[in-house]
């Protein structure tokens, strides 16, 4: 928001000597400011990732074995049909969740940002963010209570004479749980995007005879496309690596990459090499999505992401 206050002219006219110092300070200051966080990231993100990379290059290493010989065996193992199937399942869960979140989140964000009275907007947003303040584990268990065959939902369905559902321990439960988990993120981001919507363009579209539907597709959606991309990718990234929901709600046929990695380290089948290779693959996949996010995402909503 540029206000039209008169801008004061540059206050200091520096001598060449102090400009050298200033330039030096300009170089050093950010380094000092970034050092603590940089050290933190290096210690807890870069080094562990490099260790995983190293392990991933030792074929079939199991705990307690010495590292001997490097190779790409673990990565080749991933190409077994069974693992490809798991990766495919992870991706389809993530895509499905993203689509559901967009379909559910857009109307809500539109309503809060455009239709709801201004003074209610903050409150409405808080209400939407509020569920995130409980543990995601707790939320998954809540969904078990709702979806189980003798649960809340089936009691309601029976009360109104509808046949019961058997979604628990199947894909529908995973989609429900993940969409519920990630909906607030996408609403926040879409809200930030829709809030900046230039309503004069909608008025102009109406004046020029566009029915609301056309105006929505021709004006609103293109203007919020960066927000849609940012929100969609954020949901995609988080759901791609989600562990809790598939583990608790998905049942016997919901193995995802994250669960498979867990099993290689702390589960029944201990194969650190394969687990590390899968981790690296997941990191690469997520990095790719983040790169897309940076390229196509809503730059003005970046502060949110």
């Amino acid at each position: 928001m540029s206000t039209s206050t008169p801008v004061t002219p540059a206050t200091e006219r520096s001598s060449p000597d102090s400009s050298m110092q200033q330039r030096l300070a300009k170089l050093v200051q950010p380094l000092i400011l970034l050092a603590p966080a940089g050290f933190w990231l290096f210690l807890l993100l870069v080094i562990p990732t490099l260790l995983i990379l190293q392990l991933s290059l030792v074929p079939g290493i199991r705990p307690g074995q010495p590292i001997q010989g490097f190779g790409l065996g673990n990565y080749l193992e991933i190409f077994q049909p069974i693992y490809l199937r798991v990766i495919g399942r992870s991706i389809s869960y993530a895509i499905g969740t993203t689509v559901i979140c967009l379909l559910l989140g857009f109307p809500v964000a539109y309503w809060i940002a455009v239709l709801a009275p201004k003074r209610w907007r903050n409150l409405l947003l808080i209400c939407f963010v509020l569920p995130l303040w409980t543990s995601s584990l707790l939320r998954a268990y809540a969904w078990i209570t709702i979806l189980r065959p003798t649960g809340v939902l089936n009691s309601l369905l029976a009360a109104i004479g509808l046949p019961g559902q058997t979604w628990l321990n199947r894909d529908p439960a995973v989609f429900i749980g993940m969409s519920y988990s990630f909906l607030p993120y996408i609403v926040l981001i879409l809200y930030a995007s829709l809030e900046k919507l230039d309503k004069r363009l909608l008025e102009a579209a109406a004046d020029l005879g566009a029915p609301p539907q056309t105006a929505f597709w021709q004006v609103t959606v293109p203007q919020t496309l960066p927000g849609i991309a940012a929100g969609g990718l954020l949901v995609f990234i988080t759901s791609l690596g989600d562990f809790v929901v598939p583990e608790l709600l998905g049942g016997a046929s919901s193995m995802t990459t994250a669960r498979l990695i867990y099993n290689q380290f702390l589960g029944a089948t201990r194969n650190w090499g394969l687990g590390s290779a899968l981790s690296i693959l997941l990191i690469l996949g997520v990095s790719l999505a983040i790169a897309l996010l940076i390229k196509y995402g809503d730059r003005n909503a970046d502060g949110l992401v």
Partner: protein
Amino acid sequence: MPPNLRLSRLSSSTFLSSRRRFLQLSSAALSGVVLSNCAGNLAEVGGTESSPTSGSAVGNATGTTGDKSTLYVYSWTNYTDPELLRDFQSKTGIQVVVDNYDSNETMLAKMQAGGGSQYSVIFPSDYMVTQMVELGMLTELDQSRLRGLATLKPQWQNPSYDPNNAHSVPATWGTTGFVFDPTRLPGEMRGWDYLFDNQAQLTRQITLINDVREVMGSVLRFLGYSFNSENASELEAAYKKLVELKPAIANFLTNGWEDQIASGDLSVSMAYSTDALSLMAEAPNLKYIVPESGSSLWTDTIVIPKTAPHPDAAYEWINYFLNPENNANLVSRLKFATPNQAAFDLLPSELKEDPNLFPPEEVLAKCERIAPVSEKITEAFDSYWTQLTSA
């Protein structure tokens, strides 16, 4: 620009900027919550263990690793209860923090990864004791410090998995079977063949234990082979049988099925006898059987890992378990079978004669102990298990 207009623009801009600040703040708070959730989830879901500080501590545990007054115990879920921890503390002055695991392999993985260095007491099963001894992970016990080894039943005096109990003290034993509500199952449920014959009616109604050796072994046994088969084609046959059953399998759960079977969400759960009998104390409509083809016969032991920070307290813990009165109380409360003859003698007769808790000889004769298998066969077991759980 007229002043009043300017004023209104200013106020609208502060309004907007304050909302933007709210957005930034809330998203910052949000990411904090998300991060802490992630950490919590890892701790919670990771084999249902929790971090030592959040474990079920008695009193106000200080939670620092290696604290001389705190004993960290790594155990199966049903071997401790708050009363045990209270009683142990009042008798020895040692605070106990318990973390749980749900399979031997999970426990081994965590210990091997170095994530279990705070534990002074672990409860591995028989075959896992052998494996951990081979890996050099267990302290050789100083038997002069143990009181009551002589009261163990003869078959546990010199067990094959750990000759002379050199590294382990047998603590509990039991079988692995099925728990179910008989009124929900037409016909007579006697074991695996019932599940295979009626699987069309049992779609997503069964849970199996999340343990490769128990599940594969039990099916191997059903097919007439050994739990410890080293024959690749026999393993494959068992795997194929399980694939056939897959549509009926709701989930692979060692624990967590209790609620669902009691409320009728599930029809059959494969379970350790301890867990099944504990549940049946609350839900008497349920029934427990050992499959007709036989089950595994397991002994869970108490060991002290070489990394134990507090071995003295660990000896206290073992002696507490070996004490007949303590042991008999635990059996009454936690429903595990005890290898301790002196404790058995103290039990009320309805427990002594409970065929689920102490199965008769003819049932035990059909059962088999799980033993370590060669590295190659272990990999085959693991590979089939991955295939089964990933498909």
